[in-house]
């Protein structure tokens, strides 16, 4: 079944980037294993553990489209001009950057908000999953009940400050643990978002 999912590497203290968007130490696990892992020839080659590779392969094979925020687009410098992971990407923004609005642009800009962006991404994804990126977009998706699953790749580090994944939520949301994959360099925690909540 098609799902809307979010996957983030997060420090134990809840940050997905440092104060200046730096992710170096958080992403150590992408470069500390002995298995070469590459999604497509345009993507970087990661070196991860066998357990992490199996899990990422499974997740990313099922990925059909991405929805993320304008900040993610800016910080990544438009992913070098290619859609990451080789799937259609929908960027939620108030003001589309005109230099990327053209025929055959690798990016689709959505000005009508997160819900509409996820709708369009679902159409593009067919029967595959939609991945949500960016902390703000993820928070909005959670609050709007649009997210089906969350995977936290917990990095063994305390950052002390930075950008929090879970911020501005304001309301409690029940989760159900689906899977825990434990490796020395990262702990993969996967949860289903429980939507039929009792009052």
């Amino acid at each position, binding site marked *: 079944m098609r799902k809307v999912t979010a996957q983030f590497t997060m420090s*134990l*203290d*809840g940050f997905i980037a*440092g104060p200046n968007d730096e992710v170096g*130490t958080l992403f150590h696990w992408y470069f500390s294993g002995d298995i070469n892992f590459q999604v497509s020839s345009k993507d970087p080659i990661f070196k991860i553990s066998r357990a992490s590779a199996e899990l990422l392969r499974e997740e990313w094979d099922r990925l059909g489209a991405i929805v993320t925020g304008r900040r993610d687009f800016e910080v990544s410098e438009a992913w070098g001009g290619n859609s990451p992971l080789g799937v259609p990407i929908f960027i939620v923004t108030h003001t589309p950057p005109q230099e990327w609005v053209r025929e055959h642009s690798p990016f689709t800009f959505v000005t009508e908000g997160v819900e509409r962006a996820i709708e369009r991404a679902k159409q593009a994804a067919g029967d595959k999953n939609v991945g949500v990126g960016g902390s703000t977009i993820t928070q909005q998706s*959670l609050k709007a009940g649009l997210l089906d699953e*969350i995977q*936290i790749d*917990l990095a*063994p*580090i*305390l*950052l*002390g*400050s930075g950008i*929090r*994944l*879970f911020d501005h*939520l*304001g*309301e*409690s*949301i*029940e*989760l*159900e*643990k689906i899977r*825990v994959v*434990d490796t*020395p360099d990262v*702990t993969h*925690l996967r*949860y289903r978002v429980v939507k039929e909540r009792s009052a």
Partner: protein
Amino acid sequence: MGKVVFNMTMSLDGFVAGPNDSPEKGLGDGGDALFNWYFSGDTEISVSEGTPMLKVSRQSAEILKASIENSGAGVWGRKTFDIAGGWGGHPPGSPCFIVTRTIPQEWVYEGSPFTFVTDGVESAIRQAKQAAGDKDVVVSTASILQQCLNLGLMDEIHVDVAPLLLGKGVRLFDHLNIEPTTLERIRVVAAPGVTHLGFRVVK
């Protein structure tokens, strides 16, 4: 010398209590759900006379038992002490050091399990280490963890991750004034209804 070990239950979004935690509502608004795993298993375990009998999974029971056995002293904040009502005089882990500015005189008597420390966290940890000998000093208060991390006093961090997002409340990892700090994973146990994570602080 024993270690200084932190242990608390935390939501996936990093809260250890909901908003408005008070003696009437120890875990704050919506916070009781953090402790569902304490009462949803089939193995009974008693932490102390001052806390309710727990019913946890077999995996969680093993972890709790080891933690109780290794505990040589506890350090708590005054707010936690007040919220718990002094655990009716039976704190989970004794001897018990309470960091406070003012001493509650009603708890000062011959044989009291509590030592009130008015000269700060560093002093409380030092006194607790002496009392604990070879065993561990256990910290289960968010503000004490934060101060210990800022002072470089924490050896291990154990969090029991509850499957929920609280959305607001008392953040565990807050007010930190540290450089990025590497942790070493000691243990990950995916028990029913909770995931036990243990890390060593690399110094």
